[in-house]
């Protein structure tokens, strides 16, 4: 019997999982996919926002600013990269920039200033000189969103939390102060309080819990990923519009460049990229920058923002008892995740000192072994170390997110098969049983005549 059962292994679920374990609770995390960070938390801009963007007084504003403050220490404890590189909103409408600055100050954001011409162009050498002013936000930063999610969950697991993957909930029974949760593969988990942090899947779980179902909207954002280069050294946004923060250019925590995201309202959750969306990015970026290294594009992806009204929803369910609803966590959800975890802990009455945690070791090894991924220079022993890490990832993409094998310019051309072989060997499964990311997504099929 768990004190808390969390549905959803995105950054929000993982942050709550981690916080609750730190506060000494007995917690289980149920994720329907084969790994954490396969939803919005793997496909976003990876920005730790400063907090000037959100409407003052909203949960978004509060949790963004608080979340941002928590990042340094958290990432240090988790042993992952966090870079406070700063961010710029560029545009010639000084009125608008000043509005943003004033809102930021009201939200409690420190380190905001307006910079102009030479100073701006020096920070962003490739910015077109038509752009003369910008809001500079010193506290903005970069984090790998999937590594943050993975590290949060790993640390929780190392310290006694339980994470269950491939857990498709079929039925939830309520009996005497407890929830009995059944998966389609006949696992049963019992818990006293449940937290629904399933992002786009919110209503599926709400329905099974007989909790409040909510109207959810989806907005897709597409990106280009560039190979490592120094096109920009900090995040550059255009002025925000009704649709969002606009198409930006940013380095990632690992040194690649992201161009995107688009903002397209869609009817169903769908992370496909589109030719139109991608053209849009090129157009917007060329309007802002010179020397765009389009020849360094190595990949495209898209993520879906899930919204429920204008603000985050984080509250006790009104229909079902002992259910915490978390819904509509779109941007700045990544930044806010550590603060959301604090808030939910407070709500459920988990207080007091954090216990002393055993820190995660990461995947570093003394000797890398043969280079398996040539582009990112990842050795065999690092891959083995990731395969045998606390969450026991079993997919090619899970390994890719942990050690970057397959993230370089050849996109796994050299290493895909070798990674599959190592996973198959360590898990004792057949080569054709290794999935790329999802159940039903085998990389290779059996049936060659001379197999």
């Amino acid at each position, binding site marked *: 019997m768990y004190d808390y059962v969390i549905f959803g292994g995105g950054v929000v679920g993982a942050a709550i999982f981690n916080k609750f374990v730190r506060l000494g609770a007995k917690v289980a995390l149920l994720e329907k996919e084969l790994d954490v960070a396969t939803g919005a938390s793997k496909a976003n801009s990876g920005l730790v926002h400063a907090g000037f963007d959100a409407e003052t007084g909203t949960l978004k504003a509060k949790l963004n600013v608080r979340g941002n403050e928590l990042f340094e220490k958290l990432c240090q404890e988790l042993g992952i990269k966090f870079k406070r590189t700063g961010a710029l909103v560029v545009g010639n409408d000084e009125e608008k920039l000043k509005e943003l600055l004033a809102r930021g100050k009201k939200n409690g954001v420190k380190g905001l200033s307006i910079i102009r011409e030479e100073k701006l162009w020096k920070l962003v050498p490739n910015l077109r000189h038509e752009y003369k002013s910008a809001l500079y936000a010193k506290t903005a930063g970069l984090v790998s969103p999937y590594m943050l999610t993975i590290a949060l969950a790993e640390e929780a697991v190392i310290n006694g939390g339980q994470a269950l993957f491939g857990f498709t909930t079929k039925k939830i029974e309520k009996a005497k102060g407890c929830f009995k949760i059944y998966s389609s593969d006949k696992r049963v988990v019992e818990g006293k309080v449940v937290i629904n942090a399933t992002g786009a899947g919110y209503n599926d779980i709400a329905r099974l819990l007989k909790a409040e179902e909510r109207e959810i909207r989806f907005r897709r954002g597409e990106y280009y990923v560039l190979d490592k280069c120094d096109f920009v050294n900090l995040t550059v946004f255009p002025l925000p519009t009704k649709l969002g923060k606009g198409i930006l250019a940013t380095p990632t925590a690992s040194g690649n460049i992201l161009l995107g995201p688009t903002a397209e309202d869609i009817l169903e959750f769908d992370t496909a990229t589109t030719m139109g969306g991608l053209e849009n990015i090129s157009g917007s970026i060329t309007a802002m920058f010179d020397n765009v290294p389009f020849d360094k594009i190595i990949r495209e992806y898209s993520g879906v923002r899930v919204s429920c009204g204008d603000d985050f929803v984080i509250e006790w369910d009104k229909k079902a008892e002992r259910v915490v609803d978390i819904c509509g966590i779109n941007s700045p959800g990544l930044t806010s995740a550590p603060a959301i975890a604090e808030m939910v802990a407070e709500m459920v009455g988990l207080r007091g000192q954090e216990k002393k945690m055993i820190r995660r070791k990461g995947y570093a090894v003394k000797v890398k072994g043969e280079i398996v991924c040539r582009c990112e220079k990842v050795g065999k022993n690092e891959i083995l170390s990731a395969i045998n890490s606390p969450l026991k990832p079993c997919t090619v993409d899970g390994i890719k997110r942990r050690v970057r094998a397959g993230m370089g310019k050849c996109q796994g*051309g050299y290493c895909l098969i070798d990674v599959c*072989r190592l996973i198959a060997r360590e898990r004792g499964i057949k080569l054709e049983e290794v999935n790329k990311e999802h159940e039903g997504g085998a990389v290779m099929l059996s*049936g060659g005549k001379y197999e």
Partner: protein
Amino acid sequence: MSSFYDVIVIGGGPSGMQAAIEAKKEGAKVLILECNDSLGGILNQCIHNGFGLRQFKEELTGPEFAYKQYSEVKKLKIPSVFGAYVTKIEGEKITALVRGKEKEYFSKAIVLATGARERTAGEIKLAGDRGAGIYTAGTAQKMINYYGKLSGKRVVILGSGDIGLIMARRMTLEGAKVLKILEIMPSSSGLRRNIRQCVEDFEIPLEFSHTVTRVVGRERVKGVYYAEVDENLKPKLETEKFLECDCLLLSVGLIPENTLLSEVEKNIKKQIIVNEFRQTSIKNLFISGNSLHIHDLADNASEEGAIAGRSAALFARGALEELGEEYEISFSSAISYTVPQRVSGCGSFKIFFRAKQNFLRKKIVVRCEGEEIASKFCVGITSGEMQEIEVESGKVKGPLTVSIE
């Protein structure tokens, strides 16, 4: 073991092996650094025949071709270090991760023969879902030829490069159904013989001026949308159709793997500039095979390796230093590039080039300051095949131009 050499060859594919062989025959102390566990490079996965006609005058499979070279390497007692991934070249120093541990080697001359990689879905901005089942043709080739696994059972191939054509036949022989090959251009960049033997003989539909517009399938490929393209290669969306399949293979080009060089020489353009000795602007650095430009045949990559290896050995003993003036080779608009791009013209040499389109009954002409110094009549010139023309010793007195007339 001393780590000082006359010639170190980076990469042990057909080009690198031949470079090592020729350097050794010139008397140099040679070492091969190879990141795989064996020599042969890409040849090891090319189990079909069609190799060796030029170099060995017999038709061989890839592994057979590699084995012949390997036997020579062994006979000449040329040492190789396996699991050695070279990460840096600085002057005469080479840094490699050997089984993941950093090691340094020193060599008077270096031959880079690191091969090529395949262009990816990301680089051609393929739209749609990104599930399992989208691979480059070379990856699919390795799956089936090394491990007996299929990349899919109902296959669409995008691009009609040679590896794609070869894989169309290979997958068919292995029991998969190759539904279509879609090529965005009006003609194939593949070898004529591959189109005949791998596509036409197996009655696989090859559609020109068509491309994939979107891939469907979150977990694994479920199908692709494809359409005809207009003269600007933009899909005509009204012609879009759906094709159910579980695999999309890409054969959309090879890209020379020369990152090692671009790290030393920041201002290299798309093409690496070499003289007829395959010497780069960094005098002790020679380059050959697919890492210099894409070869259709391993025989050609090997022939080029021989030039680079021999020249590197000469350089190591100081015999290549006084070449005198180098002249540029320019070319007419029907040609997309030449190798070499500069010559000293000390001895005879060949100019290799690719034509931008197909020609019938034309002459290839090399001129030096307006005067014809070499020419060759060709019944057919295709854009898919590398062309060559030899220039005799003593003819070069100034810049050259190559044209198709």
